[in-house]
């Protein structure tokens, strides 16, 4: 199970709202290479991993990705505060706003909702590790 830690992994205190930037950054939340996909990738792959060192790192990196997921949401949340309707229209944030207002939703910058086809879990350590390298070489 998991225990919630009431802090961000790294602080986020955005001074200037910027809805155009928010529309790009939301992709790191629910886009094809985002933190949700990363977290689900590692946490799902750990069950078939035969080596304890690799089980540990899949478990712990998968957990850390959830922390990243929260930081990205925080960035988008703070970038979209106190917007006027003109700012929403002119920034290009309107396409997101029409469906979600300033709620946080797992979606790519192009508006495609999170789709689990962006990662793999094949029950084979080498196959999964290759997929991890393609997705996030920092793991290895």
């Amino acid at each position, binding site marked *: 199970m998991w225990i919630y830690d009431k*802090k961000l992994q*790294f602080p986020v205190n955005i001074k200037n709202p910027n809805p155009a930037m928010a529309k790009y950054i939301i992709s790191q939340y629910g886009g094809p290479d985002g933190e949700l996909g990363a977290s689900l990738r590692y946490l799902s792959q750990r069950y078939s991993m035969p080596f304890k060192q690799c089980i540990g790192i899949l478990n712990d990196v998968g957990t850390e990705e959830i922390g990243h997921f929260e930081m990205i949401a925080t960035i988008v949340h703070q970038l979209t505060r106190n917007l006027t309707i003109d700012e929403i229209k002119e920034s290009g944030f309107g396409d997101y706003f029409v469906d979600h207002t300033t709620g946080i939703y797992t979606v790519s910058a192009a508006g495609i909702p999170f789709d689990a086809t962006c990662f793999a879990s094949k029950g084979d350590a080498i196959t999964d590790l290759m997929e991890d390298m393609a997705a996030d070489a920092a793991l290895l």
Partner: protein
Amino acid sequence: MNRIDLMRRVQMLSFVLVDVSLYLDTHPTDKAGLNFFNKYNTLYQSAKEEYEKNYGPLTIAGTNDTNSWSWIDEPWPWQREV
């Protein structure tokens, strides 16, 4: 230490533990790594304890309330610190 400075200390020490623990996952018998982890874990534990004593719980286990459930008190992590 004020709340934001102490939070920053907790975050820094916590970040150290995350990174070193990932290293130890794949280098579990590295004595220097283990010593490094233990040193920063002690510092983290005392910073976390000091934060919770003065500014409220960081985990559910950090609560000790008799009148009002402090867990729901603001700020939540996504709220700006100003």
